[in-house]
């Protein structure tokens, strides 16, 4: 098991529950993190002082849309004053020239992540709403002009999967970004209500994998993924190859629910100030900021300890994994998705199941290994 740090290295904060948009697949709204109210400035600033005393190194501000907060610059000043760096996850539509200049001036910004889901308004706006594309692109240009690091995230879904080659060209060639990252619309938050028209079908998923792999090769590795089709195809190919060879998995601990190491170095906070293990597990209430001592909660909360020992739960013990050849190489997927799909974070996520994917896609392991899926 990874070692637990003495205090969290990173805190992910839903700094607001408000947003000017309602993207159809948003993981936040209608989740247990969709809370009634935001905290006032003073309470966040007092919390940032505690983070500084606890030697936390970075804060990620998400939500909701962080730039709807009128006090966003004051909050970021509080982070900087406490010797931390920060990132902001944004839809990009509210970022102004003045804010970009302010962010540049702090010299502590790891990145501003702006979501772009299409190469043109009609694709991007199919889930995000009219008028959002130009404003998000403008934000990227303004941030670039001020030298603020921009990280673009593309969420792959049913309506943009065929636009991926254009998206890559737009972001990497036209806007000149060094890279962008991808994930997929997942069965979380609002996506649960619109899943039929937005979530990737199995055919979409194969297409996304094949397309992203070939684009990444064409663009010299400038497409990144920690989740979603590109991450899956890399991991699953490795699992199929290792299974065929009967060889060890290397440094990745397979055979247990070991895919998520977040609880060893990160903690999250909802917009109402409630500590949670992760923004994808917003219903797991651990305590409250400025009431519960951070270091004590981090080291001693029984639910955090339980989530850390999740890493030792063997996949062979789950009925749904019975007889699976991939057990020694599988790590069970995201606990947040396991929770929404199965009702428990202590089970493998069906979404991350290679055996299920191969069965549903009709691809044999040999064909999957050879990349013989769908031609983009």
């Amino acid at each position: 098991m990874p070692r637990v740090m003495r205090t969290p290295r990173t805190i992910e904060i839903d700094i607001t529950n408000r947003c000017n948009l309602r993207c159809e697949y948003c993981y936040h709204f209608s989740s247990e993190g969709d809370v009634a109210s935001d905290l006032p400035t003073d309470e966040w600033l007092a919390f940032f002082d505690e983070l500084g005393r606890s030697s936390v190194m970075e804060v990620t501000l998400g939500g909701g849309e962080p730039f709807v907060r009128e006090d966003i610059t004051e909050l970021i000043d509080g982070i900087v004053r406490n010797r931390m760096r920060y990132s902001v996850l944004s839809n990009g539509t509210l970022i102004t020239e003045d804010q970009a200049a302010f962010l540049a001036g702090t010299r502590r910004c790891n990145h501003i992540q702006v979501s772009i889901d299409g190469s043109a308004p009609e694709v991007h706006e199919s889930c995000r709403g009219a008028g959002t594309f130009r404003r998000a692109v403008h934000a990227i240009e303004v941030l670039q002009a001020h030298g603020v690091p921009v990280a673009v995230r593309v969420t792959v879904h049913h309506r943009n999967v065929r636009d991926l080659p254009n998206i890559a060209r737009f972001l990497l060639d036209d806007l000149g970004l060094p890279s962008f990252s991808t994930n997929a619309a997942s069965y979380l938050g609002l996506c649960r209500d619109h899943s039929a028209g937005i979530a990737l079908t199995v055919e979409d998923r194969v297409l996304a994998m094949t397309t992203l792999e070939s684009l990444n090769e064409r663009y010299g590795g400038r497409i990144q993924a920690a989740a979603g089709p590109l991450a899956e195809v890399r991991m699953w190919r490795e699992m199929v190859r290792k299974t065929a060879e009967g060889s060890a998995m290397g440094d990745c601990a397979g055979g247990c629910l070991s895919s998520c190491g977040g609880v060893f170095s990160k903690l999250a906070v909802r917009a109402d100030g409630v500590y949670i293990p992760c923004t994808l597990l917003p219903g797991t209430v651990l305590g409250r900021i400025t009431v519960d001592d951070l270091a004590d909660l981090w080291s001693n909360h029984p639910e955090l300890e339980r989530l850390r020992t999740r890493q030792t739960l063997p996949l062979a013990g789950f009925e749904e994994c019975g007889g699976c050849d991939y057990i020694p190489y599988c790590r069970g997927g995201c606990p947040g998705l396991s929770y929404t799909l199965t009702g428990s974070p202590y089970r493998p996520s069906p979404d991350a199941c290679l055996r299920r994917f191969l069965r549903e896609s009709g691809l044999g392991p040999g064909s999957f290994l050879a990349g013989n899926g769908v031609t983009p």
Partner: protein
Amino acid sequence: MPSACRIVANPSTVFREELDDWALLFNPDTGAVYGLNPVGAFIRKNMDGRHSVRDFADLVTEHFEDVSPEVEKEVSAFVEELVEKGFAEYRES
């Protein structure tokens, strides 16, 4: 740098003590992170502007077992590296 020179930690950097006496140094201006073993962490804790490389070498010899005969040279190289990376400064005595 003469080994009588005092060394002070850069107060705008973060010193994170981890388990088993290991530690991390973090420079929020650059994002640089630097891992310290228990001896390095012990020296960093004593960078209060009152100790020199020679003092650190004496303190290390007092507090740790099996200390190398080259301890002053090794401490000097370590301090120089922290100064270069912006985690500490020399202070004229």
